[in-house]
Structures are given as structure tokens and as C-alpha cells.
């Protein structure tokens, strides 16, 4: 089987590029041929096309363009695609496309909202409330099958009316390697990795960390990643009195530095609200290192087993809960870390994930043809035997997994 593979790839600074870099070698061991398609290049002849779709129009706009030319299996890395769709419509001067997409998903109300956005009468929906308007219909319409990483996204796709096959395949984990931790002090050292913005609950984390410092004055916070344009991190740090003695800052770092920094931490925090339905490669990395982890209790994060990560409800007590959870995670680091590592080794094993991918791709490429051929032979045999209605027999074939 030959698969045309559409995804951002390194050096693109994207979690999905990292994901594909990890997954592709394992897939290539199990699939006859995979051709990675580059932006602007002609689509290769293939039995099946696989499209990795995320919410970033710069990274994925060309992939949706290719999907429009040839439907295929979509890996839906995020449920919310509003920013992507806005980018490939309004962003390309094609406002009418945005109107159509909004109307397709939300009817006349959607079209009116979109008109409001185009006329600058309403704030940009993809920045203010994308989770209420995920705008996935355009992509779902073209998907012959969906690969998702969580029940959350699976449910969301079904609620959006998707009726095709969905395969839920966990995010793979990275092969275990010996990592030399960076030399950083902190008692405990609390790490937070990724783009720093409101969605990552950085204000709540800073407040929670400040509370922790009251009982653990030696605690330090390591923030790794660039701050969002309109997120005034420095002012917030100053207001909370988090000075250099309590804070370590690194912006975007190399992969090896990322691992070394993460390995140095005692506890990791990866919060999210609202969620776009995304899975976090950072969380998988941290769990694979056997680090206690705090996550928000929603979306994919809520699906982690209870003993593997401490889940923080998104409510008015979030900051004190974070502080208490950091204490708890530090006190039970060994048990939490061991459970995390064991969970990731099993559920997120790269070979297992690749095997599930291959089954999904093989099913997508030939499953319908095999089912149709079986049904045709059943119908033929039933007709030959004088049976007018072979539906009972067809049900038996379906129950046996044969069609």
C-alpha cells in the first residue's frame, strides 16, 4: 500500500511536526511506501492520502487545500479549527468562504456572525470564543475517515455530525533515552513548557505558585517558551512578587535542551482552558520521564488515569488547588512518576500506536471494497437460493466483523 502523507515537518516549529517526525519512521517499518508531500509539490499517486490537520493556518492551510483536491483520512489533532478556516478564507482575501463555512456549520446565525466579523462589528470569533464555534465541518466533510487522539475529539466530531469511521489512536511517546538533567536548583523546581498565554492558565499558575512559596520558600518556577504577544507576563510577575530568585525563564529551546530542562524539574504543570481538543506532546514527554504532572480537568487531559496526573478543575478555586496539588505532587513524586511512566509505556507505546495507524489506514484504503465484495457474494448466494431478503445474513456477517 502506498500512502501520501501530508504534515508539517521539522524544522517547522509545530507540535504536529514533532509528532510526524516521531511517528513516520515507525510507520515506514509497517507500510509498503509512504511519500511525504511537501507544500507546493504535486500530489503523488497513492492508494490513500493521510492529512494531519491542526488549527494553525500557516502550518496546515496547504494541507486543507490538498484535502479539497483529494479526500482522504484526516488526523484531527484539534477539534477547534476556527483559526485555520479563518486563515484560509479571510486570510487569503476570500471572505465569502468564511461566510459559507460558518453557515455550513451554524446556519443563518453563523452567517450573520461571520458577516459581523467581516464588517468589524464583532470581535474575531477565533480569538474570543473559538471553543463555541469549532468550525470543523469544512474538514469533516472531506474526511473519508478520522484519526483522533481522544474520546473528547471523537465525541466532538460526532456531535458535529461526522458519520464516517473514527479511529482513536493515542499520541505516541518518544523512545526512552538517558537524559542528563540541566543543572537548575529549586525546592521544588516546578516546570511549565510551551507557549505562554491565557489558555495555558499562566495567571492561575503564577498565583498558585505564589501560594506554594509561602510554605516552600525554596520553590522555583521554570517557564520555557515564548510569551504570547498580548500576554503581559512581566507585569504579572512583578505584581505577584515573583522575582529572579524564584523564576527561571527560557524562550523557545532546542529539542535536546527541552528534554534536559524537563528532566531537571520536580513537578510539571500543563494546564489548559478552554481546550481546543488538543493533545499535548509536552505532557506525554513529561509523563515518559516519570514526572508528577498537573493538568486541567477537561478535554484530553481529563482522560488521563487519575493515578497518573493530578487534575485541576477549572473553577474559582483553581489557584489554591494548584498550590495544594504542587505540595501533593512533591510529596508523592515517586508513586506518581512511576505510574506516569508505566502508563505511557503501555498506552502510548510508539510501536503500538504505529500498528493502530496501519490498521486504520488499511481499513480506510480497502475496507469498503472488501465489505462490498462480501455483501455482493452474500446477496448473490441468497438470490441463487431463492431468498428475497438477505438482511438477516448480512447482520450476521456484520456481527462477525466480516463486513
Amino acid at each position, binding site marked *: 500500500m502506498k500512502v501520501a502523507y501530508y504534515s508539517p515537518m521539522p524544522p517547522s516549529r509545530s507540535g504536529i511536526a514533532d509528532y510526524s517526525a516521531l511517528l513516520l519512521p515507525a510507520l515506514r517499518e509497517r507500510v509498503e511506501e509512504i511519500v511525504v508531500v511537501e507544500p507546493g509539490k504535486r500530489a503523488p499517486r497513492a492508494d490513500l492520502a493521510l492529512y494531519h490537520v491542526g488549527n494553525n493556518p500557516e502550518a496546515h492551510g496547504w494541507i486543507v487545500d490538498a484535502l479539497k483536491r483529494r479526500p482522504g483520512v484526516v488526523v484531527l489533532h484539534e477539534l477547534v479549527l476556527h483559526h485555520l478556516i479563518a486563515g484560509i478564507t479571510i486570510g487569503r482575501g476570500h471572505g465569502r468562504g468564511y461566510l459559507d463555512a460558518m453557515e455550513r456549520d451554524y446556519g443563518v446565525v453563523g452567517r450573520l456572525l461571520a458577516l459581523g466579523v467581516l464588517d468589524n462589528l464583532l470581535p474575531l470569533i477565533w480569538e474570543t470564543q473559538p471553543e463555541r464555534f469549532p468550525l470543523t465541518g469544512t474538514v469533516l466533510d472531506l474526511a473519508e475517515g478520522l484519526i483522533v487522539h481522544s474520546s473528547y475529539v471523537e465525541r466532538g466530531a460526532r456531535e458535529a455530525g461526522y458519520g464516517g469511521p473514527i479511529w482513536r489512536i493515542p499520541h505516541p511517546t518518544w523512545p526512552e533515552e538517558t537524559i542528563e538533567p540541566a543543572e537548575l536548583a529549586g525546592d521544588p523546581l516546578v516546570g511549565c513548557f510551551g507557549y505562554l498565554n491565557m489558555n495555558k492558565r499562566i495567571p492561575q499558575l503564577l498565583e498558585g505558585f505564589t501560594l506554594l512559596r509561602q510554605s516552600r520558600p525554596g520553590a522555583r518556577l521554570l517557564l520555557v517558551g515564548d510569551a504570547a504577544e498580548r500576554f503581559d507576563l512581566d507585569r504579572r510577575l512583578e505584581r505577584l512578587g515573583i522575582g529572579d530568585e524564584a523564576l527561571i525563564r527560557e524562550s523557545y529551546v532546542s529539542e535536546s535542551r527541552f528534554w534536559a530542562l524537563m528532566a531537571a524539574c520536580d513537578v510539571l504543570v500543563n494546564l489548559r482552558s478552554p481546550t481546543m481538543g488538543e493533545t499535548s506532546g509536552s505532557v506525554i514527554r513529561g509523563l515518559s520521564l516519570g514526572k508528577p504532572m498537573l493538568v486541567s480537568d477537561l478535554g484530553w487531559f481529563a482522560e488521563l488515569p487519575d493515578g497518573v496526573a493530578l487534575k485541576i478543575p477549572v473553577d474559582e478555586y483553581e489557584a489554591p488547588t494548584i498550590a495544594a496539588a504542587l505540595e501533593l505532587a512533591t510529596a508523592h513524586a515517586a508513586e506518581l512518576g512511576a505510574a506516569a511512566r508505566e502508563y505511557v509505556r503501555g498506552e502510548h507505546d510508539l510501536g503500538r500506536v504505529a500498528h493502530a495507524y496501519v490498521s486504520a489506514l488499511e481499513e480506510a484504503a*480497502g475496507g469498503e471494497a472488501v465489505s462490498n465484495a462480501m455483501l455482493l457474494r452474500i446477496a448473490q448466494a441468497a438470490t441463487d437460493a431463492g431468498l428475497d431478503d438477505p438482511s438477516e445474513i448480512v447482520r450476521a456477517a456484520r456481527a*462477525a466483523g466480516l463486513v
Partner: protein
Amino acid sequence: MRVAVCRPQVPFVYGGAEIVADDLVAELRLRGHEAEIVSVPYGWEGMRVLDHAFIWRLLELKGSPGKPIDLAIATKFPSYGLRHPNKVVWLLHQFRQAYDFDRTEFGQFSESPLDRATRLAIERFDRVAFGEAKRIFATSGNVAGRLKRYSGFDAQVLPHPPQKLAYRTDGSDGFVLSVNRLDRYKRIDLLIEAAKAEPGLRAVIVGEGPERGRLEQLASGMNGRIEFTGRVDPDRLADLYARCLAVYYAPVDEDFGMVPYEAFLSAKPVVTTLDAGGPLDVVREGETGIVVAPDAAELARACAHLAAHPDEARTLGEAGKAVAERVTWDACIDALLS
């Protein structure tokens, strides 16, 4: 108890699986049960394999009024797909072309989307069928391991006794015996190559199969040290077992392997290879036989060693006999009917 023993039947082919099912029926009847073979012709080329799986699926073995079937024992793919409220699987093997043989020289599914999806349908069928079984037994650790690895089900290992023969021991006439269908993966050529490397080694090869011509060609010019007998009757087979030095049995990753048990009941050691699979449940290096790498020179050395140390060969064979005698129909039937 009224028991249906289910097996697919490749027309005009009668081998180990057929023997086991027939023996099971006979042994059940000896113990006062009503037992019968339920069989459907089987073919596995291309998508036909799904048709045959589906034919089994359509069978709902209820029995007739006043004569319900109490238990259905299914033996191998696709017979375990039948429907019965008390279905027990005694697994001889799954459809290996869909699993461990896939993408090897022994596989049958190409890289075409249709073939790949056909293979997936077999996977699904197996999961449904095994999921319905009240209990699952496997004839060897190897078969149980594959079932766990590929389909996720646990099975209790339950080996079956070999066919009934007049097993005995008549010393040793110094030849190494091979009893097997002459298929490529049974690896008879390794024994012939070993005989070429060890001029003192004589071998008798029992069995028929598509490889016979090639193997005879390979054995030509060896002054008759390799004898091909074709199929032999039970008396002759028992006699060959009784008079051989040792038995060679080294298929590639075999499911079970009845031959080692037959050799052991004749108090003969077995020479096998590290990758032989099921036989390794009972052929243990230095205990009941010799286990070598799949290499002609190593095999030749092992056979020469046994020829030079007949007392050791006898001791290994006797130890094997004790192992084989523990595998009884009483134990099998107790487990299957429990």
C-alpha cells in the same frame, strides 16, 4: 454430554489437526459421551477465506429437538466462529498468514488495499469469535503466546496426546528419523545439509509433500544415506521410531508438533532448533533432546554427538518419555468439559 467437535477440512488433506479432532471424538465416546465431528470444506485463497469464515459463522449448532448439543469444541480457524452458547476453543492455530506469516515468504496477503483489508477482517473475526468463547485452550505455549500477542486473549496451555501407535523401543540402528509433511517451512533440507556435513549421518525421511522433488535432488549423490519412504502405515512408523537413534523435528515456529511426543513415547531424543516454536515446550536442551541454532553444521554436530554417546541418547529419550506420558486424554477431556 453431547459434544460437537468442529474442524474445517481441506478436501483430501488429512494431517495433525484432523487426527486430533478424530481422536478427541473417539476418546469422548470411550468415556460415554455422544460426540461427532462437524466439518465444513475449507479454502483460503484471496477473499475466499472470508467466505469460509462466514460459512462457519452461519452455523448455529443447536442440535435437534430432544437432542441439544451441550458443548461445541472448536479447533482452528475458522471453525471457532460458529455460534453456540457453550463454545470452547481448543486452539491448534489461527490463520497464520494473517498474523506472524504476514509480510514473510509464508504470507499470502499482498500490499494491495484489498488484501490488507481482507487480513484486517480476519483479525476482527477472530476477536469476535474468541470473545464469545466460554474457555480458550491452546495446544502449546507458542500458540497461546501468539493468541495473546495478536488478538489479546489468554489461553490455558493444553497439549494433546499424539496419535495412537504401537510405541516401543528396539535399541538404535543409528539413523536419524524425520516424520513430517515435506513442506518448505518444515525445514527437512536442513537435515540433508547436515548429513552432507557429517559423513557418518544417515537419515530416514517419512512423509509426502510439495518439496519432495527438490529434497530428493538435494540428497542425490549421498550413497543412499538419505532414504525417502513417502507415507508409511502405522506399523512401519512405529517400527521406524523404535529403531532410530533420534528424531529430527525443526519446522519454523511450529504451532504444536505432535512428532516430539511420538518420539518420546518411543523413548527417543529429539533434535530441534531454537526457532522451532511449539516443540520447545517439551524438547529441552540436555533434558529431553538437543536444541541447536538453525544451522546445518550445528545440527550435524548434535547428531554426531548422540551417535557417539548412545547412553546419553537413551537417557534423554527416557526423560522425554516421562514428559509425554503425562499428556493424557483423561487430562484433556477433564479440562475441556470442566
